[in-house]
């Protein structure tokens, strides 16, 4: 069997990045900047190769590797794969940039940190092209396993340690469930390649095995997107982890989960789309409702974002839930739904990342802190506030940032295209609950700092641009960790890029919609 090495290039580069990071750490010990720089270069290289290889594809064409038959491939490199790989690498790069303040503190060993991040990226890069269960599982684990360590890497940090164990335990348990599902699917169809599973003539006796297998597989994978019921780890882990890692978890790791769910729930489960549709619908409804309701009551910033991301997972899965409706299983409808899911994922990733990025810019190496700590932020750093507001309102699905709005539009549109009106209504109503806490958080930025009750109500950018009291009083009145932070340039760049992209795709949603169209 011939192996198209070109298809593997991005994977090689990614893996090489990991190794380079380790070597660099050995060669120039103590030079954090160097290590990070090398890793960053590697990641950039990954992006570049992904794009170039993607460009190299003649339209509609694809490169394959490790094939037994025409469709029995472990790896397929098509435009979608290229896009996913590029996005993953970009997110890893962004996370790295956000990590700079953390690395500066020396709380974490730079070399290992970069290495683990690169490993995770490698897994993610492969994930996009995986076309059989084994590769899928291994890739997912390669994506996830380094994250346990990244979460708990900070020395002597109790929260970090606890968070790491929580993450790990829930992860292995749900992995076990997913593997059980895989085993049942294999038992029923005798195939591990998606093509085989999708094309297998399943004996009526084995039909239930296949269905239950798919259900368990999806439920197990739901852990990756932190969907109810496999969601409880997210708040604890996000809050315990360093902010950059939390950012990576809530973007890259989630995106990985989405890709996996798409591959399994749609590509592989063709014969039993109804089953996977219903499963995903249940997961979606539970996730968005529970996530939004609990988020209403959060006091800590990161936990708020964590719960909101649980809800977002619900919106992510909602379009696939429409597969349960007969109207959603027709060819074009399925493409519509898949495209909507991917589009929402991209919109979400951009907004979520810029939100976390802004947090890092505000808090430096510290943790997210209480929501109340952000009062008066607008007065101190208007630009960061603007980014946060755009991201949060975007996640809520409202202007000024049109990205979030179009994300919701895409989801609802696909749902109605798939005859799942009720699901669309559930999504819509959840959006209302969601706005309640996003807007509350956004409003606190404009509130006066806790020590300045005299400024109660003095709000909005104005507060930032001039301040109702002399500037001195304002900063004195501020809670200490909010004294205007000196944002290190990588963070600044990362946030700026993310914000720009968020605004850009708001005005040109077609970019994302076209990218999403390449899937399935």
């Amino acid at each position, binding site marked *: 069997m011939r192996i198209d090495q070109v298809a593997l290039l991005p994977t090689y580069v990614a893996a090489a990045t990991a190794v380079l990071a380790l070597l660099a750490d050995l060669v120039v010990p103590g030079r954090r900047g160097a290590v990070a720089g090398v890793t960053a270069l590697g990641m950039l290289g990954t992006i570049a190769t992904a794009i170039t290889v993607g460009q190299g594809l003649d339209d509609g064409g694809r490169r394959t590797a490790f094939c037994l038959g025409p469709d029995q491939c472990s790896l397929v490199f098509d435009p979608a794969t290229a896009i996913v790989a590029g996005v993953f690498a970009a997110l890893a790069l962004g996370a790295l940039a956000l990590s700079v303040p953390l690395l500066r503190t020396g709380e974490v060993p730079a070399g290992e940190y970069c290495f683990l991040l690169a490993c995770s990226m490698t897994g993610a890069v492969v994930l996009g092209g995986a076309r059989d269960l084994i590769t899928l599982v291994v890739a997912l*684990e390669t994506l996830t396993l380094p994250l346990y360590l990244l979460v708990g890497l900070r020395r002597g940090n109790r929260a970090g340690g606890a968070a790491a*164990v929580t993450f790990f335990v829930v992860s292995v348990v749900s992995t076990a469930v997913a593997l*059980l599902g895989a085993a*049942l699917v294999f038992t029923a169809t005798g195939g591990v390649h998606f093509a*085989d599973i999708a094309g297998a003539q399943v004996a009526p006796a084995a039909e239930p095995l296949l269905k239950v297998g798919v259900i368990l597989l999806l439920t197990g994978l739901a852990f990756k997107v932190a969907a109810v019921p496999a969601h409880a780890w997210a708040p*604890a882990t996000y809050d315990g982890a360093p902010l950059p890692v939390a950012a990576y978890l809530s973007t890259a790791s989630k995106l990985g989960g989405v890709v996996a769910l798409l591959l399994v729930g749609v590509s592989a489960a063709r014969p039993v789309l109804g089953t996977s549709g219903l499963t995903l619908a249940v997961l979606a409804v539970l996730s968005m409702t529970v996530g939004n309701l609990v988020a209403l009551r959060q006091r800590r910033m990161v936990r708020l974002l964590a719960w909101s991301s649980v809800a977002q997972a619900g919106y992510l899965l909602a379009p696939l839930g429409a597969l349960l409706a007969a109207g959603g299983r027709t060819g074009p409808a399925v493409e519509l739904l898949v495209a909507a899911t991917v589009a929402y994922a991209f919109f979400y990733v951009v907004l979520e990342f810029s939100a976390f990025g802004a947090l890092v810019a505000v808090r430096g190496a510290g943790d997210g802190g209480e929501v109340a700590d952000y009062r008066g932020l607008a007065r101190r750093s208007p630009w960061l506030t603007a980014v946060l507001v755009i991201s949060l309102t975007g996640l809520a699905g409202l202007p000024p940032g049109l990205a979030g709005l179009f994300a919701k539009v895409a989801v609802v549109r696909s749902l109605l295209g798939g005859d799942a009106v009720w699901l669309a209504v559930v999504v819509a109503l959840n959006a209302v609950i969601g706005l309640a806490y996003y807007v509350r958080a956004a409003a606190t930025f404009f509130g006066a700092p806790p020590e300045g009750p005299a400024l109660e109500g003095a709000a909005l950018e104005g507060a930032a641009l001039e301040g109702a009291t002399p500037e001195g009083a304002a900063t004195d009145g501020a809670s200490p960790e909010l004294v205007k932070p000196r944002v290190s340039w990588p963070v600044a760049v990362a946030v700026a890029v993310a914000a720009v992209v968020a605004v850009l795709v708001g005005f040109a949603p077609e970019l994302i919609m076209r990218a999403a169209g390449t899937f399935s």
Partner: protein
Amino acid sequence: MHPVLPFTIAALLFGIGVYGVVVRRNAVLLLMAVELMLNAVNLIFVTADATIRAAVPHAGQSFTLFVIVLAAAEVGVGLALILQLYRLRRSVVVDELELDEEVSA
């Protein structure tokens, strides 16, 4: 050979593992229970391999091998994390890992 036997065994074993995961308080014991679950899965793979006509020869057994290696890696990392936790709080009782804080009424 009647495949139903090993299959049933695997099913029950999985159930036992699940029980263990739910009731055990000690992180290490919890991990052991997880191993039981994974072994149940492996058993299913192997039995299936021996029972049905797979599209790719020995796919089930290969899968099993990968799962075993994965499990090993996971255990390694997991134990490291558990030990770190122990260093930090002198306890490996998972009941002490709070998921979420009590909210203000």
